[in-house]
Structure formats: C-alpha cells, structure tokens
C-alpha cells in the first residue's frame, strides 16, 4: 500500500490541545509520522494531499448511534449509517443495542461486527445491552460479550430502572472492568411527558418532562457507584442541575463521566416551535438556561463527551401529532457542523470540542484511536472550520431524513475522512496528487 502525505495542515492534537502547522504521513493504515512545522518532502511513490491550512485532527468517535440493523433496515443499515458517519468526519461509531434482535448475546455482537466489516466504511463498535432483551431484569453475559467485541454496556434508549438490578450490574461490571452507560431518565417521572416541563409545554398543551426525571436517576446511580466502585457513564445530561451533580461526583473522586447530545448543546425547547416532531428528543430539549449550563460544562471539561445521539426515524413515526410521534433525530452527519456553532460563538474552543469527540471517548473505550501520534490508527478528519452551507436533508446519506437541522445555516464541515488510511469521504475541492 502506497503512503499518503497530508501536507500543509493545521494539526490539532486533542491530547495536548495544541494547534500547529505540520504534516502527517500515513502508511499501512497507521500514522507513520507527524511532522511539526514545515512539511517534509513526500517519500518516493507517496500520494500527496495539500490540506491548504485546514484543520487535521483524529477522526471523530461517536459514542451513541442507533442503527436499524438488524431489524429496522428501512430506517438505517450499518452501510448507510457508516456512509453518513464518514461524510460527517466520524471514523468510529458505537452502535446501540436497541436492535431486533437486541444485542444481548455474543452471537449478535459477532453478527454486527461481521456485517460492519463487510458493509461499513468506518469502524463500528457494538455496545451490548445491560439486561437481556433490554427488559431491565436479568444481566447479560458481560464477560463473554466483551470477549466477542462489545465495548460498553447500556440499555440504550431505556434506563436500567430497577435499583437492585442496577446495583448488581455495576457490581458485576466492576470485576470485568466493563463500562456501564446509562440513559439517565426516571421513567415514572417522564410518564407521558413529551417535552421539557415548563411554560412552553403548558402553552402548547403538551405534557412536560421535569428535570427531576434526569436528576433523580443520576443521583441514585451515583449513590450506587459510590457503593460498587464501577465505571459509570451518564450517556447524556441535559440540564443545569445535572451538571452540579456530576461536578460533585467527580470532586469526590468517583469513576463517573458524562456525555451530552449535540442537540442539547445547540438547540433549546423553543426550536420545537409549532410542534416540530424532529425536535422531539430524549432527553428533551430544555430551557435556554439549561443549554447554556451544559455548554459551559463542556467548555470547562466537566462534560467529557459530545455524542450525536443519531436516531433515524421514518415518516411513519415522525409525521404525526407531536405527542404521538417517536423520539429521536438524525445526527451523525451533522455532529461536527452543528457542534461548530459553539466554536463560532466563542463558547467552546475548537481543541476542547474536538477532544470531547476524539480523545475523551477513546479513553472511555480504552481504544488507541483519537490520537495524532505515530503508530496510532490513521483515522483522520480534515476540517474546514469556516465552510458555510445550508443543510439540505435530501443530501444526507442516512436512509432517514429526520434532521432537526434541515435548512439550518451551518458553518464547518469534514472535507476529508480517512479510516485506517483509506479515504472514505472527500469533498470535490480536495485533490489527491499521485
């Protein structure tokens, strides 16, 4: 395999947060050399890409993507999800176990990995269910699932509701060093709620979801982490009170981390407008003051990870009255473009944002991806941080079209994506010289 030189780039190393001019040499699927400063000459026979001063970073790692394969291929397949990921600069996606059948046994993990190897153009890492059938009652085989290739354990869209089941899962997970990722929502407090509780929901005549649905579950879980010592990751937090709870847990030295959906970083409940079902999400879009609190927590490093919460839904589940529609929005292809809003507003620095989508999730998963150093996998993304465009959902690679950013003005996009040294996405303006 010939070498590829990515010359004349602005290197962004999430490990150090440093940005500097330089070049990256890729050979045999790995980063062979990272050269700071002036570009070295291309080795004999190497192809060259002139990066024109754009930002070269490790490829993004998305810790939370729902893929319809197996079971709901009409919404999304591993092939279509990975194509969307590549176009969005995501080189690794963690797929959720909410499939049919559920990813709750080694055979299904194996199936997903083989399907991904044959059809997906980015790395696909399956997360397995915490409980069999996502039913919340019996633990899955954490040890065997990890051996088969499961990278974390989560009941996906559902919280592990029963405190005794959660306690045992955390206790057992600790022995295997397994990571539990919890959807922090207390189902009884969610009830029939469909959006953030407050004045806006009351005016729309919709049933609200109180912030306490999130904080009650988060507080409970953190008590159980204190009891068991297991590694716990709150998949997505959405409100100011949760930020405080996470801060306290981290301050106490507990093995607790948390993520946030890009939607809760750049949208608020007002985006629902007149019942836009594409903005019906779980956790719900919250008040603007909550959005600002999670943005600040991300900037401060209190929130570890930014996820797309990619959840393809078809017309039949979205073109309904708000209360009858399904939760979820597309996200993996717009993750970077949407999150770049925070950079352009000056709320979050680019290195900090990229770290939350590369080095931080890689560390949680114990993977060597997400780094810009010789020897690391050549999963890379070239970002044009200023590229302006109007998002057109018809051009999205996903099989579904439920993007809350349709017709939104975004600025910043992946113009080149490499997975294992292979080009999986390239904008027309990026030329490869032989």
């Amino acid at each position: 395999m010939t070498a590829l030189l990515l010359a004349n780039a602005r290197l962004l190393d999430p490990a150090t947060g440093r940005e500097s001019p330089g070049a990256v040499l890729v050979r045999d699927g790995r980063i062979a050399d990272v050269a700071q400063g002036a570009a070295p000459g291309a080795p004999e026979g190497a192809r060259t890409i002139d990066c024109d001063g754009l930002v070269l970073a490790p490829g993004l790692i998305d810790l939370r993507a729902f893929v319809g394969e197996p079971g709901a291929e009409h919404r999304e397949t591993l092939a279509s999800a990975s194509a969307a990921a590549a176009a969005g600069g995501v080189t690794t996606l963690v797929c959720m176990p909410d499939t049919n059948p559920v990813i709750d046994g080694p055979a299904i993990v194996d199936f997903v990995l083989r399907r991904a190897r044959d059809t997906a153009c980015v790395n696909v890492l399956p997360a397995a269910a915490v409980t069999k059938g996502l039913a919340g009652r019996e633990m899955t085989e954490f040890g065997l699932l990890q051996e088969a290739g499961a990278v974390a354990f989560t009941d996906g869209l559902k919280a592990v509701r029963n405190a005794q089941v959660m306690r045992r899962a955390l206790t057992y997970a600790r022995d295997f060093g397994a990571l539990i990722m919890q959807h922090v929502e207390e189902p009884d407090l969610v009830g029939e709620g469909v959006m953030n509780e407050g004045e806006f929901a009351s005016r729309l005549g919709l049933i609200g979801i109180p912030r306490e649905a999130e904080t009650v579950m988060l507080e409970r879980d953190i008590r159980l982490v204190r009891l068991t010592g297991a590694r716990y990751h709150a998949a997505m937090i959405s409100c100011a009170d949760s930020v405080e709870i996470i801060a306290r847990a981290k301050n106490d030295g507990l093995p607790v981390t948390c993520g946030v959906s890009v939607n809760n970083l750049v949208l608020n409940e007002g985006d629902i407008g007149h019942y836009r079902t594409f903005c019906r999400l779980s956790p719900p879009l919250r008040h603007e003051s909550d959005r600002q609190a999670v943005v600040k927590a991300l900037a401060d490093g209190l929130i570890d990870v930014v996820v797309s919460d990619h959840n393809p839904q078809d017309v039949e589940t979205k073109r309904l009255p708000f209360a009858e529609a399904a939760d979820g929005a597309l996200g993996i292809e717009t993750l970077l473009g949407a999150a770049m809003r925070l950079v352009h507003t000056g709320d979050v620095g680019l290195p900090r944002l990229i770290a939350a989508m590369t080095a931080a999730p890689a560390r949680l998963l114990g993977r060597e991806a997400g780094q810009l150093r010789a020897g690391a996998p050549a999963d890379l993304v070239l970002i044009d941080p200023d590229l302006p465009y109007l998002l057109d959902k018809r051009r999205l690679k996903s099989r579904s079209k439920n993007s809350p950013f349709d017709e939104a003005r975004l600025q910043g996009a992946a113009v080149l994506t490499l997975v294992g040294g292979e080009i999986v996405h390239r904008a027309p303006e990026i030329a490869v010289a032989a």
Partner: protein
Amino acid sequence: MTQGPQSFPHRHLLGIEGLTRPEIEGLLDRADAAVDISRQVEKKRVTLRGRTQINLFFEPSTRTQSSFELAGKRLGADVMNMSVASSSVKKGETLIDTAATLNAMRPDIIVVRHQSAGAVHLLARKVDCSVVNAGDGAHEHPTQALLDALTIRRNKGRIEGLQVAICGDVLHSRVARSNIISLQALGARVRVIGPTTLLPAGLERFGVEVFTDMRAGLAGCDIVMMLRLQRERMNGSFVPSVKEYFRYYGLDGDKLAHAKPDALVMHPGPMNRGVEIASDIADGAQSLIREQVEMGVAVRMAVLEALATHLPND
C-alpha cells in the same frame, strides 16, 4: 347577516393565540347578529351556499359537533360529519393520509377535533381549504373561548375590567388555555383556581393569579368558570377522590357566596354534577350554562362566515 366591522385576515382558526383584540371583537359582533338570526323562524342564510363543510371528529363530542353542524347548515353549507368510530383511522390510516383523502374531495371548510395537541395545525398544513380547530388535546378550543366571551359580554355588557375565575382541571383543559388568552386580550383579569396537581407548570407566567384555596380565589369575582374533571383523573391519580374534590373545589352555594353577589356561573359542558359543580348551582339563577350552548351556535356561524372570504375553489 350584517357584514362584520372588518374582514378577518386568517385562512384558518387554529387558536385564540395570534388573534388581535379587534379580530376577536369583530367575531363577537358578527356572533351577536347570528343570535338574532337563530331566534327567527327563518334561520337560513346563503353565505355558504354550495360550500362543503366536513366535521372531522377524532374524539366523540355530541355537543360541539352538532353545534358546528347547525351553524354550517344555517349558513347554507352542505355539512358532512365524519367521526373516528366509523372511519378508516381506526384501521391504521394516519392523520396525514386522512387529510389528503378528505382534501381530494374538495371541501371548503374542515372542522377538526383531535385528542393530540398540535394535530389540527399539522392537518391544516396538508389541506387547501380552511380549517377550524374544534379542540386539539390540551392545547386550544377557540370557539369555546369565543362563545364564553360572547356570553359574558351579553350579560355583563363588557369584558374589560371584569374579574374572571377559571376553576378546576386546568392542566388537561384546552378550554382554560383558550379562555386565558382570549379574556386577557379582551381586558379581563383572570384567576386560576385548583389543586396544584391539576395546574400546568409555569402557569404564573401566563399573567394570571393562581389560587389553591377556592374561597380566597373566588373573592370579588364577576364570573366563575368551572371546568370538567375527567373520570379517570378522579380516583387517586391527580386528586384522591370525588368526595374530597367536591369538598374543596366543587362549586356549591357556600363557595359561590364568596364571589360578588351578581357573579355568574359558567361551564363548557358536559357537567359532572356533584363533582365540580352542585346541581342547584348549575340550574340556579346565576347560571349561564344553557345560554352558553345557544351562543355556541352563533359564534360558530360567525367564525364560518368570517372564514368565507378566504375559501378555496373560487
């Protein structure tokens, strides 16, 4: 029927929200004229002659549906009633499909009631004709608010400056939401009274005064508007029991005595006698409940007539 003081600039009536005070008052003026028509022997007008009105009711409602039917017929429209029990919606057809199917029949007006908030807006975006919201979930019920305003204005001579109390299950009530917006737009001061389990979050931001004690809330009120409490919410989920609810929030003579001596009592119907209102009050001298029904037909005639200037198929 006389021409209203000004033309109505909207194609649909989806809610009170978004209407200006002159627009609301214009509809009430038209409705006053419609009351006179409805009290004559010859009640028929030709405003909607040749027009087709479809009443599409996803939730059963004898009262509102017959009121709209009568209003349409008095204006000369051909009225067709479609209710969910006899339609293909039960067979899995979506709201959008139903809208497209009905739209292909080229109606001029569709009157819609649906159990989900926002469903009528969704449907209105998919059809070419005018749409009237006859109640969507806990969101809005604009013609109820208009008929309540008309009833008050005809009995008190004004709405501006009146103290109105809306009592009971505000949380699940589209009638309460539309009335709060409408009465405030018309210059009334609005109080809301109920147990907090039945009050929506952020209610104080609506510009209303909130009371959980009914006697305190009724003090000095000109109008007492009661809301229906659904049966499934009576037994422990939102309030402990009918007995307890009636004791603290049911309108009886003792509680009504705290309002002004000339206070008037209203209820959108259908009533649960002995739950939110005592029978002797419902049938008593201060009750406007039966008059509200008459005003309902008049207000719906006014709305249909106001929309007539924007109908399709011309």
